[in-house]
């Protein structure tokens, strides 16, 4: 379980990158917090720098879009999903639970 930041420090529409290996991107999509792998499944770009619209984030390099709820790409050029990670808010702090830590590597 990795602490990310205070909930109030991630307002709606914002995102933050967590320097884990591999890095994780955490989003506040209209009040709901999501975490996915930060590196685009297409090439080398950081999804935490992407364009957030509802539950979709658009990659800043070639505009592939990913659904934060599933990690699945909704358009080309990405063809593979990014991993999603569980998020919890404890005492006002956002935590990410990396999937590998929970024993489900995929």
């Amino acid at each position, binding site marked *: 379980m990795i602490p990310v930041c205070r909930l109030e420090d991630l307002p709606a529409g914002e995102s933050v990158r967590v320097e884990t290996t591999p890095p994780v991107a955490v989003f506040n999509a209209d009040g709901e917090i999501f975490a996915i792998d930060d590196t685009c499944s297409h090439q080398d770009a950081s999804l935490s720098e992407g*364009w957030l619209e509802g539950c979709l984030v658009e990659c800043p390099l070639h505009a592939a879009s990913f659904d934060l709820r599933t990690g699945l790409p909704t358009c080309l050029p990405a063809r593979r999903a990014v991993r999603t990670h569980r998020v919890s808010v404890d005492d006002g702090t956002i935590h990410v639970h990396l999937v590998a830590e929970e024993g489900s590597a995929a």
Partner: protein
Amino acid sequence: MRTITVVGASLAGLYAARELRARGYDGRLVIIGDEPHPPYDRPPLSKDFLSGKAGEDQLALCDDEETDELAVEWLLGVRARGLDARGRSVLLEDGRTVVSDGVVIATGASARRLPGPSLAGVHTLRTLDDARALRTELAAGPQRVVVIGGGFIGAETASSCVALGHDVTVVEAAPLPLLPQLGPDMAAVCAALHARGGAELVTGTGVAALYGDASVRGVELADGRLLPADVVVVGIGAAPNTAWLAGSTLALDDGVLCDDGCVTGLAQVVAVGDVARVGAVRAEHWTSATEQPRVAVGNLLAGRTAETVRPLPYFWSDQYGSRIQFAGRRRHDDTVRILEGSTEEGSFLAAYEREGHTTAVLAVNRPRPFTRMRRGLPAAVPAAA
């Protein structure tokens, strides 16, 4: 339509095939490509593929599953040598003819070469085979590399060669590289990346000749200077692949001339990607090659120009650890203003402006505000015909 033929098995050709199937075209679909390889992505060739960070498996544009779904008849390793006057049959170099109801021209561009005899150690970088050859030669240990041409591909190649430990000099004939694309202020900022990254940049002098016997030994500059070299990479731009269309009735002028909907003089022939001059503009950008097929295929199936492209030029480049992104249509006398960051810190967002409007944006290592600005730029309104 019962047979549609795509000529050129690369980025734009593949996107056209995808679009045809996505729009429900279930007839015969033939793709002709003169390279032996299935479609692959070119931008990494000068970046992560050259530096060794990415392998060939990461270049593939389509996987087995998609290949099955597309149900394409691939004719790879064979060149198209002509299109008949009515645009109904594509003639192949091996003598075969593919009779078609519709044709998508996606033959891209080829690297320009220097005149003169070919010497070992002199490379261009456009194809996978080019990149493999260069990579092999660079793997032989530290060498003196001269890159001719300071454009994006030249700069990326230089950057990758520095990362591999080579001694690199870039030669640019103009006073600064990238002047036409970025204008003097921002071209100067990007030129400084070479020195910061560890490559030498020589500007304002062209190349007089390459010297050597069987293998290249160096480059002679127009001002008389000699630059010794073990490897020379020629990055002086690309020319559209239209020679095969010489006997057709299509209008050719630095590309295949099309209207704003990618339709040529023949309603059943469309052109996309680096080879297409769409509404007077020929782009050599990845994003144009992926966006045009949607409109082109729609028009091909409609039999007329029902849709037009509304392009907002966009390209990116990775060099010396910096990501450069540019979008919009800069004109030569636009003014530039830094909106965020600074050129000194190597991370900034700049706007090109004219009469109070933003015409283009440039960012170095600022992807997020860049996207915000890019989305605010107006797409081109098609010029009245």
